[in-house]
């Protein structure tokens, strides 16, 4: 590499955990590369080793306080394999699905109303003092209230299906530990119509914004990519289970309906010396071409259809924008995310009206196994949990691929595209900062699951020369 300077932005605001962005310049001040450094908290796999397998669905929630339900369910699915539960009872599977749709619903709603809506409602160039949730509260208080109430509703679903927020125990190896009582069902049913109505409104905001700003967004941090997700056997979007489907940027199939117990035949992880995060890729395409995106955009792109009527109508409209080909516009993540919010609300309504949730048959067991893989479509994308267990029931190996890891390369590319377009010289303008954040935020990354305890660092922007010396620093 020639003479380069490096601009570092850390941590990125309104994204989970601590991350920093380095923008590498050549001797002429031109952007050569951008890197999103993620301080991933390693060591969890070691932490889990030696524990009895039945504890794992509870223990893994300690990995991430942002999406504990996703880890809870992915681990439980892996442990289903360990205990030989090849097919759960209808009550168990539907209770887990209800829990999962509650998680997707509340996570997406929070992300959209409280993190993304300021960008959409005020514009990327709005004064940062206004372009935040406080600005939304002042100018659009009804939207801010909706965000709180949608989040609260999703959390109430989690509470009645998973138990305590800090110590969810609903899903257990082979099933679930409780059904849904009539009173719990009625409590949730009374608000579902309002929730669906709010979901429609959120979808409209995201769709209208994308369509109205299509020229600007088409080029904003966007690039062609492969897409990966779970898919139901009939090609429907399925956020809880299915086979793995991967498509390229044109929609051509790379692999389809892959049994994820054998995911290691298809997916591998590369280590790079400048990041603590791994870089997953599809083996048959190699490290350079095999990276892929996951999450709402990929799920809508890979699905043949959605099995709830209003979300399906929205999906058709979404796909029409790109003539039925995959949509590779990074900012379209928000539109796709709101399609999933509506889909989740419809699914929640359907499940609440399903009497299987009041069934008494909660757990099945079968032939004991020593290795199991559990996958789920978490709010941010495909989540992999892989365990080996010995004859003494202790976990001997754990490997997790979280969705933010799969989106590692795409986020780097998004930042690079933005930097190349908006950086001039070495000056870190407010406009550049805003746009870097907006591009990363589209992926809703959970950068780390670090402790949040009182006393954390502010946003700091540093300029570092090619010798590693900080030559400029700016903090909020």
């Amino acid at each position, binding site marked *: 590499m020639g003479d380069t300077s490096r601009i570092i932005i850390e941590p990125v605001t309104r994204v989970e955990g601590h991350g920093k962005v380095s923008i590498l310049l050549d001797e002429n001040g031109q952007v050569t590369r951008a890197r999103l450094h993620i301080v991933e908290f390693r060591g*969890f796999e070691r932490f889990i080793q030696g524990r009895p397998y039945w504890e794992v669905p509870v223990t893994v929630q300690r990995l991430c306080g942002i999406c504990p339900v996703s880890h809870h369910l992915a681990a439980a699915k892996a442990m289903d394999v360990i205990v030989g539960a090849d097919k759960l009872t209808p009550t168990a599977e539907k209770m887990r699905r209800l829990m999962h749709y509650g998680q997707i619903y509340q*996570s997406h709603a929070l992300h959209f109303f409280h993190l993304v809506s300021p960008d959409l409602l005020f514009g990327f160039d709005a004064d940062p003092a206004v372009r935040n949730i406080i600005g939304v509260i002042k100018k659009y208080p009804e939207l801010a209230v909706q965000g709180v109430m949608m989040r609260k509703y999703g959390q109430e679903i989690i509470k009645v299906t998973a138990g305590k927020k800090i110590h969810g125990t609903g899903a257990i190896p082979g099933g679930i530990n409780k059904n849904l009582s009539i009173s719990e069902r009625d409590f949730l049913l009374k608000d579902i119509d309002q929730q669906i109505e709010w979901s429609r409104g959120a979808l409209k905001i995201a769709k209208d914004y994308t369509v109205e700003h299509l020229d600007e967004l088409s080029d904003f941090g966007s690039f062609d990519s492969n897409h990966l997700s779970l898919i139901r056997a009939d090609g429907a979007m399925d956020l809880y289970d299915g086979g793995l489907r991967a498509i390229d940027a044109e929609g051509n199939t790379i692999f389809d309906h892959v049994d994820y117990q054998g995911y290691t035949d298809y997916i591998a992880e590369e280590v790079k010396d400048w990041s603590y995060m791994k870089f997953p890729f599809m083996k048959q395409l190699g490290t350079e071409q095999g990276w892929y995106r996951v999450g709402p955009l990929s799920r809508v792109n890979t699905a043949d259809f959605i099995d709830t009527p209003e979300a399906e109508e929205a999906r058709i409209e979404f796909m029409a924008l790109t003539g039925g080909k995959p949509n590779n516009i990074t900012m379209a993540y928000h539109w796709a995310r709101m399609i999933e919010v509506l889909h989740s609300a419809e699914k929640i309504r359907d499940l609440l009206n399903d009497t299987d949730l009041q069934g008494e048959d909660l757990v099945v067991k079968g032939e004991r196994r020593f290795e199991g893989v559990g996958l789920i479509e978490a709010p941010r994308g495909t989540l992999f949990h892989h365990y080996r267990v010995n004859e003494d029931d202790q976990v001997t190996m754990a490997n997790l691929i979280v969705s933010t890891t799969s989106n590692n390369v795409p986020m780097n590319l998004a930042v690079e595209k933005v930097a190349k377009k908006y950086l001039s010289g070495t000056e870190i303008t407010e406009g550049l900062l805003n746009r870097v954040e907006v591009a990363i935020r589209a992926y809703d990354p959970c950068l780390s699951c670090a*402790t949040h305890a009182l006393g954390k660092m502010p946003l700091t922007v540093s300029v570092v020369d090619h010798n590693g010396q900080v030559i400029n620093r700016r903090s909020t």
Partner: protein
Amino acid sequence: MSRQGKRVLIIGYGNPGRLDDGLGPEFAARMEKLNLEGVTVDSNYQLAVEDAAAIAEHDFVIFADADTTGAEPFHFEAVVPRSHMSFSSHSISADALMAMAEDLLSSRAEAYMLGIRGYEFNQFGERISPKALENLDRALAFMKLALEDCDFGKYVTRNTAENR
């Protein structure tokens, strides 16, 4: 002043899988066992926007969190509602949460932060260090006393232990 008729919400937060970061949830668990009339106890990994709805239904809110650098064994201070952006996203700070409850849901709750000093944070592990446990015991004794009259303002100090 007595607690009679007052509605108190205690929220202990933190990650029990990160050593002393579990001080907040452990404080909440121990408070819940006391089963005090008029006191609602909740715990979570972090504060979240939907907590504003619960806050709006109470007269007082006590946030209990691990503190990485504060006074030993704990500090107790008023939380002033303040609108600002947090670096974290799906979580929210106590003062921003109070501002949200006030602005959006017309909450008039008084809020206080109980910051319990911890020492070990940067590893996985479901245990609290011995010294932090001592601080937790003292924080519990303090809170039981403060809840007797709910006159929380008179206990406020950045360094409660030194001033008592």
